[in-house]
């Protein structure tokens, strides 16, 4: 399918971020979306909860609006609710490395 799009960059498939998921999360929570090209390419989408955990780990300026939107969509009201979601996915040493405790304390102060 990709070969039909003549203007695609060589690195059109954004797989550089995969290393974060292998290193830092227990597993990737994704659901099948659709396939392309007679089952050559299968596309899976992450759940909002999984996105929330990885966005809290990244926590760059570019992630701010995403974090706020996900908190709203998941109706996260308390730090404990947020921590429970993060605990589901992010490994303890990853949480320490990314200072998750500090970030959640500030987000839900």
């Amino acid at each position: 399918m990709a070969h039909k799009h003549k203007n695609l960059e060589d690195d059109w498939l954004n797989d550089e971020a995969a290393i974060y998921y292998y290193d830092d999360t227990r597993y990737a929570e994704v659901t099948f979306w659709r396939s392309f090209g007679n089952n050559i390419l299968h596309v899976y989408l992450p759940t909002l909860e999984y996105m929330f955990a990885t966005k809290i780990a990244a926590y760059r300026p570019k992630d701010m609006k995403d974090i706020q939107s996900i908190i709203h969509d998941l109706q996260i009201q308390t730090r404990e609710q947020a921590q429970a979601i993060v605990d589901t996915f992010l490994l303890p040493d990853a949480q320490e490395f990314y200072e998750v405790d500090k970030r959640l304390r500030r987000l839900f102060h």
Partner: protein
Amino acid sequence: MAPLQTMKRVYAEILKGEEPWISLGNFMHQFFGSRKHLRAELVSDAIRVPKRCSFEQHKWAVFCAASVEYLCKEYAIPCPNWVHGSVYILADPWYYDLCADLPEVQEELRQTTPEEFTRRNIFCGSRTFDNKYEKKGRPRTAA
């Protein structure tokens, strides 16, 4: 082949109402990945700042200038002169983070933000241009 997503193009898109991190994200994708052999070209042309621009548009103009100076230093490419224009300084501090109203957040941003931003009164921390292409993985604590 997609056109070069230069910083000049980024700012022009922001002026047209594009979400800044969409345009900046496309710039980063080329700067760090597909067009990294053209980094100097991606930053060389001056952005065009309207004489009458909104406060928000001015903030992002300053952010673009600071970003170019920072990236030029980080990646050892010639820094274009346009970034040193006096227009690229904010009158008041911009603490750019979630919960930026908290004193402890502001203090952390003052401590961690690169000088190319703080000199222009932008305080955005050190993770703004984290580069996924160069991530080697988190240091492991156990074998």
